[in-house]
């Protein structure tokens, strides 16, 4: 088995005797895009800060490409690039100078690597302007560039689309997606935007109150195995499902008929409904959106 790009084991953090991150474990394999989802205050940012050495864990281990972050810090950090609630750039320098300065801190960042990163984020035209005159979108792009100049294996993005307009969010998402596809870089992205995570990520970790409450592939989590029928007489349909197929179906307020079924027998059910004289308007699979799943898992009224 290949070494996972990121391995987090039993990560915990307490501040003033209050445990805010409780025993989080997960891993990220090569080429995966993992989403980190959670309500405000869940501990996403705190966790991500512990992954890159900005915060000290109270317990647990973090390894990046097999290098532990506490024992082998330099090696571990050489494999990761990150944006933590950024963008954090030197406003009195140009975009290029920022990248040059930060590149000089790593061992083998060449001018070509910097130029490639600039081209990737599409900032060639304005790269020599002072950062103080950049728009938010431009700053975020430079932020992404600084995470990429040393060619890391892991990209950690903590709320990278903060403050971007919908166009900016779309462009950022496209850059990250094509980056993951072309270079095989693994990405860990935390976001409030559930739709973004749903569109970009292969797997998702849902965090709530410092604990990992769900960890799995996006498609798995979303398919609930239910089928929705819209028919002209839902009550009759319900009876047919009960008598002929021993299925408990429910009728929603929008007069939809929903039942959890084995997909193999769907054609038989459809045939039975038609044979009974019902008009079948639509038959669809009932996928929860990630948002519904998220809200049900993280149902809370107060901040803990």
């Amino acid at each position, binding site marked *: 088995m290949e070494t996972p790009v990121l391995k987090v084991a039993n990560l915990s953090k307490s501040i003033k005797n209050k445990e805010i991150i409780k025993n989080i474990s997960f891993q990220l394999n090569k080429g995966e895009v993992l989403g980190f989802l959670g309500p405000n205050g869940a501990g996403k940012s705190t966790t991500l800060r512990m992954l890159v050495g900005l915060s000290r864990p109270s317990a647990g281990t973090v390894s990046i490409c097999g290098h532990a972050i506490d024992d082998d810090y330099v090696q571990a950090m*050489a494999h990761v690039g990150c944006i933590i609630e950024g963008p954090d750039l030197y*406003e009195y320098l140009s975009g290029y100078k920022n990248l040059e300065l930060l590149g000089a801190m790593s061992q083998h960042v060449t001018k070509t690597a910097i130029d490639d990163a600039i081209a990737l984020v599409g900032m060639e035209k304005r790269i020599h302007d002072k950062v103080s005159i950049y728009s938010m979108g431009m700053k975020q792009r430079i932020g992404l560039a600084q995470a990429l100049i040393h060619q890391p294996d892991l990209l950690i993005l903590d709320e990278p689309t903060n403050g971007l307009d919908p166009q900016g969010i779309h462009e950022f998402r496209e850059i990250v997606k094509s980056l993951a596809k072309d270079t095989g870089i693994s990405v860990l992205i935390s976001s409030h935007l559930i739709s973004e995570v749903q569109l970009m990520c292969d797997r998702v970790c849902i965090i709530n109150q410092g604990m990992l409450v769900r960890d799995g592939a996006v498609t798995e989590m979303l398919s609930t195995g239910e089928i929705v029928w819209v028919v002209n007489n839902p009550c009759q349909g319900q009876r047919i499902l009960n008598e002929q197929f021993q299925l408990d179906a429910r009728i929603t307020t929008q007069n939809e008929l929903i039942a959890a079924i084995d997909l193999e027998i769907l054609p038989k059910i459809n045939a039975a409904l038609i044979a009974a004289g019902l008009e079948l308007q639509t038959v669809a699979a009932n996928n929860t959106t990630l948002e519904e799943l998220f809200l049900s898992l993280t149902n809370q009224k107060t901040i803990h």
Partner: protein
Amino acid sequence: MLNLIRNEVTKLLLKKKLFLIIGLLIIFITLLSYGQQYTYEKNIDRFENLSGAGSYDWKSLATQRLDDLEKRLDSPYIPDDGIASIDIEIKQLRYFIDNDINPITPSAAKFSVDFVEQGISLLIPLIIVILAADLVSGEFSTGTIKVLLTRAVPRWKILLSKLIALLLMTTLVVLIMGLLAILISYLFFGQWGFDEPVATGFRLIDGQLNADAVILVSRFEYTLLIYSLTWYVAIVIAALTLLISIIVDNTVTAIGVLMAALIGGQFLQFFLSDWPIVKFFFVTNLDLIRYLTGSYQPIPGMSLNFSIITLGIWGLLALLIGFQIFNRKDVLV
């Protein structure tokens, strides 16, 4: 490591604070030079008007000063400590007159020493604080500390590069200050004054001025000596500022804390003779130059060596504590 230092120096230079400091220095030096020239000319005028003589004779002026001081000693209102310092000045003047050394004509070299003499306890530390205060706290408030620390470089190396860059810039500032003082005051006085003999080596033995070990050095050597002491004080202040900058993430608070210490320390000077513990506070030891010029109130236990060691300990402790804190700090910005 060189790259890191180069980065930090670039940041310090491009932040343009250096130009602000040089601007401030130019203003102060010009004002003080002008002030000194003005007072000197006024004194000559006054003397010439009083004595009716046509030209200026320093020996007479010095003798005049000597008479004033001796008269003041006769006054019944001087406290005991005051007597000691007046006595010292009298002895010094007697020495200058007997050995034909002119104590008061202004020259560029003399001014450069006078300038740091005046500034070493407040102005110069303030300038260093302005230079150093946002070295770490600035990165926290703008958030750039996050991109700085998430590199493949251990934290202590990053802080060390900042420290070295700070020491380099501090040295540069002291150098520029000396050059500006000499050049600008030359414009006013027209005299370099590097060859003038300076008597130094006055020692305080049991509260009495002792002139046995006094030697004459050229003003050039004396200036170098004084500026070395100034540099040492600047370095210690820089180290302390770095520590405060690390502890409080906020630049304004850092400057406030240090200014409070510097100004508060000026008040503490009054308690030096009655409250022994005050002599261990770093602010009361900042004025190293007074030990060389011989014009100060003697406090038991305080000597040049004592002050240098005390400042050194404060500086080293500040660095040790600072590094520890920086290494363990959680970055929450």
